[in-house]
């Protein structure tokens, strides 16, 4: 049970194609990196997530052409409170990368990826439903799993497990 410590130094991880591509495009976009348990995480500035994803999808070196998953983690009461997490898969290269955007509780909103991958639709609606994150530019941002007249966002950490009765 030995786990190598996580690498968080941008200089050491420059060789990774996704990091290299994003740094070459705009160094300000990458706000942090982490390589832990053989998984690569790149923290992206929230204003640039859509362009960053479109770049990684179309780049001939990385070809992260498949959006596996979008999800969210609530770090209540810490700030920035929310992390929206994107898992990309490269079908030709058989590689994964994880992109993260941090959002504060005052304005939990980020640009929608629906124009990059149409499949982002349901994932984003689910996060809107269960976490209350707004996705700007989403074509149909309504609750997906909970009833339409439900109050609150159940997967937030300040929402009790047994619900309100």
């Amino acid at each position, binding site marked *: 049970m030995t786990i190598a410590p996580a690498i968080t130094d941008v200089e050491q991880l420059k060789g990774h194609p996704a990091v290299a591509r994003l740094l070459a495009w705009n160094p300000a976009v990458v706000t942090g990196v982490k390589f832990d*348990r053989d998984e690569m995480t790149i923290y992206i500035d929230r204003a640039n997530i859509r362009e960053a994803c479109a770049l990684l999808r179309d780049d001939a070196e990385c070809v992260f052409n*498949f959006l596996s*998953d979008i*999800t969210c983690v609530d770090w209540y009461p810490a700030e920035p409170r929310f992390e929206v997490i994107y898992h990309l898969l490269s079908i030709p290269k058989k590689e994964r990368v994880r992109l993260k955007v941090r959002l504060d509780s005052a304005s939990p909103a980020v640009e929608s990826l629906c124009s990059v991958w*149409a499949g*982002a639709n349901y994932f984003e609606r689910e996060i809107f439903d*269960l976490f209350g994150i707004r996705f700007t530019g989403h074509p149909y941002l309504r*609750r997906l799993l*909970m009833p339409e007249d439900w109050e609150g966002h159940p997967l937030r950490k300040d929402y009790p*497990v047994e619900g309100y009765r």
Partner: protein
Amino acid sequence: MAHLTPTPVLEPGQDRTMILNMGPQHPSTHGVLRVLLEIDGETVVRIMPDIGFLHTGIEKTCEAKFYQQVVPLTDRIDYLCPMTNNLCYVLAVEKLLGLEIPAKAQWMRVLMNELTRINSHLVWLGTHAMDIGALTVFLYCFREREEILKMFEAISGQRMMTSYFRIGGLALEPPLGFFERVREFAGRFPEKVDEYENLLTGNPIWMMRTKGVARMTAEDAIALGASGPTLRGSGVDIDLRRDMPYSGYENFKFKVPVAQEGDVFARYMCRVAELRESNKIVQQALDGMPEGPIKANAPGVVLPDREKMKTQMEALIYHFKIITEGFAVPAGEVYQAVESPRGEMGYYIVSDGTAKPYRVHMRAACLANLQTLPKMCEGGLIADVVAAIGSIDIVLGEIDR
């Protein structure tokens, strides 16, 4: 559940279309899927799936449980392939812990997973054919499925909610005679697949109902996040078992069936071919099954054997501690994906260093696959919607979680 009040799509002067509500109790929606159809005569103009009727908040429940208590919850997500869900979850936690799993446990996991895949595909084939009107296939498929369920019962005590995998290994040694039973089943299963194919593959009615129906291109399938046979039916050659192997799949030789047409028939052919390939993996697993322990050597994580608990003091203490306070998992996050019968099933687990997961997220293959439904059906005939839904192989328990 967003469409309780559907937005009116009828505009002045456009009185050709009508709204038809299908489900949530419609038998061909495989559970509780509701589909809103805007139809112009027999043609589907627009289609909107409506989900959430089976939402149980499993992701939230997981956050209140110890790591080992989450395993039974994972069965209940996709109730047709419990072992695949168990496997994906335990692999993710083992990656967080950095655990090494003994070879026999890995091979057993592969064996059980492929039996699960056969089981799930048999339910799919039976219900899909029944939706289109071939009632007999259902009875044939459930005959073989019953045998697999009995094997599950023999090995885990449960027919469907197996919870057979544990963090660090397996729950129990397989019972005496289990491997012979599986070998006997695997020996005659290919003939059974021939029987199904005799009923369907060359059948002119089946071909007319499936060929050229609900087409989807590879580009659309990738953009919509489709995976598994839904993606491979459109000509994209990816299978996580072969391309990003886990749990020792690199030791097995099998083909990944891919079809180019992207219609219902192509997805049908992929899955039927997968039945045969899974059976081959089962046979390889039986032939090469290594000897050795079925649990990792990690006393604070893996429950001790019953026998040791009665004779050794530490074993009893570890047992008590694991049951009452769980085990701490080092802080971090992992995303583990496996190839479920429906596609890419992924678990994203965040640990904050305590004994309960901070966040468990399940990437449901069906949720993404369901998004392809409008692409497949719009412009087609209303009767083909049923064929399209069947060809995606949805399980609403997984979609709604």
